[in-house]
């Protein structure tokens, strides 16, 4: 039945596709405001230095130049705020440096904006920026995290006591118990590894267009954002001092985000500020080269993990020490990533009773680091699943059996790292994987590869993630400076059509298709009768946007709550129209009926009555049919999965080829299987990119060596295989109305350990006793490991 009207469970084709397939999308760079001027930022080409001169006089006289801005123009303006304050092991708040819109006094990373030229054309702005005279007194660049923490290290921020942002211990009370368990363990497996720095690289570079209406005093910012309301709040309240009712932020079609478009960036504040200052709309379009040095980067952790096991191979304790790179400034949510999005996931799918996580967050002269697809959870999963694989090899046990033996099997399960898993079936999900990946046929495939002179390896991985971010009160206690609810308004029109205005934002996820499927199911109408509006603060309720796989779990739940309110009111109207008791009214297939009778009225009759209330219970309820709900989740959701990767390694060259990739995920209930598959595919593609190809590299002087697609290896179509994905293992979330868990980050979390485990397995099959290779597992690294 649901499939007929494209409700929950239908692989409805996406309605947004038609505009994207015909070139009719409306991305921010497609927006041109009458009379707009263009901005070009002059950015630091050194990693660390004191600005001794910024002379704009020549640039100001260049053709087309309207005005040149420097840090001095922003002295009375707030800095970019950080949205999360982490408290350290000793109960002290983290060190939090100022983050000016344009550099003041010092530059702290290659790409730090020094000045901005506003001109009639983009070319004129660029030409003039080149004419700005800048003198920088070079300072030693701080690049390596451990070196940054030495007593004699140069400080990135002169006014902080050191380059240590915080030293976090979690759970601090468990520290001694964990030490003791590790000292007394029958076996301890230790691994040191890196989770390399990545660049998110959504295919659409960032863009900002600021506009100011002098007549009304209203500012508008068009921007490539995953969460326009958050930008409005942060920029309005903390940077520019503009109240929300005078500030509209629009994020139209957005060409991918992956986390990098969550954060509030200097260019957004600049364009908003400058539009008023020069009395012209001001547009900035990032080049890709600029994106590499101005978009927040991801990952960049260095970790030592120890896993303790008893004589029966039960996990007894985990201890980790991680250095997390913050870059030169604190990006919007940066402090939360290595802590609350990472430490809380260190239990993984396993019932390890004692866990202690230590994280030292460090300032360096590099681009700020913040959330990138998975954010903290890929880092946690990678350590855990690599160390489990190593332990299985050291102990000579089957890696799947070792995992199964230690799986959490009873729910709810309170981990020793503060979260409570509501549901899951890790054995069931592993069963699905074993079958779909044909693991029993692996040995035969290995022989076949060996016959061709290739080393074949099988890599397993299990992951759990905490999504549906997040219970506001909990995150408030943990240092979040924002609530993390979501909102929706369901507006029913007189003739029965529906517009849902959501605070959630789609930049590839397909909300315009999936959200109507839910409403269609609830009312029993055609999904085509439902339209989704998102991305414009002027017509959506205050919402927190899309990240952390939260759209359907939190935004969808808000929509369900608002729709329930609408339905309840509609039932009152229907009862009045049919002169029946409200308690007897049933809604099915778009018809309200009176239980036990053949009386019914159609959805459209009721909606019309709501707006033409001639025959209407006006003494009981107001006319109209429009409701808003804010939904604050009571827990995170916990998607989990089991992945298997098979690789072939060419022993001559070290080149790794992925031969098979299978992913079994438990996302709870699923609204649109086609879209969920696509999300997993994309995540796996990015995860394979991290495992085999991508690496953002700085040299010792703080120069970024991988600042274009020529040097930063993005996964291409011929780097990846077809993926086998399955979501039939389903344990619905127990605490949200749809029973959904979220699927956006799973692939990126689950795939890197599977790939690396497979490579290590392949090398062992060839007699190479290699414990670990850091990502990206490039041919050079594999060859070096084999020939060490």
């Amino acid at each position, binding site marked *: 039945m649901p499939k007929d009207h494209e409700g929950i469970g239908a*692989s409805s*084709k*996406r309605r*947004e*596709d*038609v*505009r*994207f*397939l*015909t*070139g*009719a*999308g409306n*991305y921010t*760079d*497609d927006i041109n405001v009458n009379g707009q001027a263009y901005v070009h930022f002059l950015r630091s080409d050194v990693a660390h230095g004191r600005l001794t001169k910024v002379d704009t006089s020549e640039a100001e006289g260049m053709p087309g130049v309207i005005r040149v801005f420097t840090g001095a123009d922003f002295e009375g303006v707030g800095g970019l705020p950080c949205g999360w304050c982490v408290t350290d092991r000793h109960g002290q708040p983290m060190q939090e440096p100022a983050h000016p819109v344009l550099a003041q006094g010092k530059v702290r990373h290659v790409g730090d904006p020094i000045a901005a030229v506003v001109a009639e054309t983009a*070319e004129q702005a660029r030409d003039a920026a080149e004419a700005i005279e800048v003198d920088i007194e070079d300072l030693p660049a701080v690049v390596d995290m451990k070196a940054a923490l030495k007593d004699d290290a140069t400080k990135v921020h002169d006014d902080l006591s050191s380059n240590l942002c915080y030293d976090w211990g979690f759970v601090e009370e468990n520290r001694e118990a964990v030490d003791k368990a590790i000292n007394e363990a029958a076996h301890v497996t230790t691994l040191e590894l890196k989770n390399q720095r990545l660049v998110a*690289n*959504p*295919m*659409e*570079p960032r863009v900002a267009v600021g506009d100011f209406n002098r007549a009304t005093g209203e500012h508008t910012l068009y921007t490539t954002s995953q969460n326009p309301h958050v930008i409005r709040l942060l920029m309005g309240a903390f940077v520019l001092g503009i109240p929300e009712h005078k500030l509209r932020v629009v994020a139209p*079609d*957005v*060409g*991918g985000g*992956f986390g990098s478009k969550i954060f509030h960036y200097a260019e957004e504040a600049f364009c908003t500020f400058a539009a008023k200052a020069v009395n012209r709309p001001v547009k900035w379009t990032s*080049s*890709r*080269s600029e994106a590499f040095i101005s978009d927040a980067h991801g990952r960049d952790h260095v970790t030592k993990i120890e896993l303790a096991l008893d004589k029966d191979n039960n996990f007894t304790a985990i201890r980790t020490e991680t250095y997390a790179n913050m870059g030169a400034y604190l990006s919007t949510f940066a402090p939360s990533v290595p802590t609350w999005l990472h430490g809380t996931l260190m239990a993984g799918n396993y019932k390890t009773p004692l866990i202690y996580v230590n994280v030292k967050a460090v300032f360096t002269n590099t681009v700020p680091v913040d959330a990138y697809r998975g954010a903290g959870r890929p880092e946690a999963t990678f350590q855990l699943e690599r160390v489990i694989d190593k332990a299985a090899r050291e102990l000579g046990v089957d890696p799947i059996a070792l995992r199964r033996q230690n799986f959490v099997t009873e729910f709810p399960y309170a981990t020793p790292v503060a979260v409570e898993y509501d549901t899951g079936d890790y054995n069931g999900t592993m069963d699905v994987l074993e079958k779909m990946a044909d693991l029993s046929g692996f040995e035969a495939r290995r022989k076949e590869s060996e016959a061709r002179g290739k080393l074949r390896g099988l890599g397993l991985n299990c992951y759990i993630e905490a999504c549906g971010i997040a219970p506001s009160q909990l995150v408030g206690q943990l240092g979040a400076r924002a609530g993390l609810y979501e909102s929706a308004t369901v507006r029913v029109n007189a003739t029965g059509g529906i517009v849902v205005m959501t605070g959630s934002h789609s930049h*590839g*996820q*397909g909300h315009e298709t999936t959200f109507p499927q839910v409403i269609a199911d609830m009312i029993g109408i055609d999904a085509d009768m439902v339209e989704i509006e998102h991305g414009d603060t002027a017509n959506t309720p205050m919402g927190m946007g899309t990240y952390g796989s939260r759209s359907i779990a939190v935004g969808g739940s808000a929509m369900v709550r608002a729709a329930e309110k609408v339905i309840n009111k509609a039932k009152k109207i229907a009862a009045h129209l049919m002169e029946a008791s409200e308690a007897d009214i049933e809604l099915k297939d778009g018809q309200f009926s009176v239980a036990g009778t053949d009386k019914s009225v159609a959805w459209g009759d009721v909606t019309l009555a709501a707006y033409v209330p001639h025959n209407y219970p006006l003494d009981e309820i107001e006319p109209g049919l429009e409701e808003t709900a804010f939904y604050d989740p009571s827990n995170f959701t916990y998607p989990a999965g089991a992945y298997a990767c098979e690789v072939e390694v060419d022993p001559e060259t070290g080149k790794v080829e992925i031969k098979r990739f299978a992913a079994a995920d438990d996302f709870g209930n699923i609204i649109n299987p*086609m*879209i969920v*598959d*696509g*999300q997993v*595919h*994309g*995540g*796996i*593609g*990015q995860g*394979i990119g991290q495992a085999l190809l991508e690496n953002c590299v700085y040299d010792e002087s703080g120069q970024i060596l991988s600042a*274009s*697609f*020529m040097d930063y290896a*993005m*996964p*291409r*179509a*011929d780097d*990846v295989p*077809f*993926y*086998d*994905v*399955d979501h039939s293992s389903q344990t619905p979330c127990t605490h949200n109305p749809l029973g959904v868990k979220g699927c956006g980050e799973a*692939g990126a979390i689950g795939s890197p350990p599977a790939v690396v485990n497979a490579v290590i397995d392949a090398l062992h099959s060839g007699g190479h006793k290699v414990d670990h290779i850091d990502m990206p597992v490039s041919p050079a690294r594999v060859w070096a490991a084999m020939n060490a």
Partner: protein
Amino acid sequence: MPQVSMTVNGKPASGDVEGRTLLSSFLRDTMGLTGTHVGCDTSQCGACVVHVDGEAVKACTMFALEAEGAEVATIEGQAAPDGTLNAIQAAFQEHHGLQCGFCTPGMVMSAAALLKDNPKPSEAEIRDYLEGNLCRCTGYHNIVKAIMAASGQNVGAIAAE
């Protein structure tokens, strides 16, 4: 400023450009055809692929003046005048070959050029041909599948639907 004239999607198009104006900028800024996207500045991403005299070209690698007199086809001209999607576009929708849509115009234009020369490409040939088209969203799975389907191949057996 020199003038350039060409045919875009079958219609005459002309405008004043600088010597350094790229074909991608001419299409986007002068012609208002914003379906051609710019995703990089090193000719790597393929978001800007259009056809010039029937050949797939990265519009960011060509000056507008170089297209003088040429027949240019962009994503905006691919569907029928009544809006009916062409076979490649329809296959992309049918097989969920796009998410954010930013790479999509370039993917569709590249796929069209591939299928013109090679009407039934193998999976490997498609992956190889798409070397110059980056997509960050789809992991390429459904793009490759859509192109196989558009060329009339049975994609039912491909993992995961």
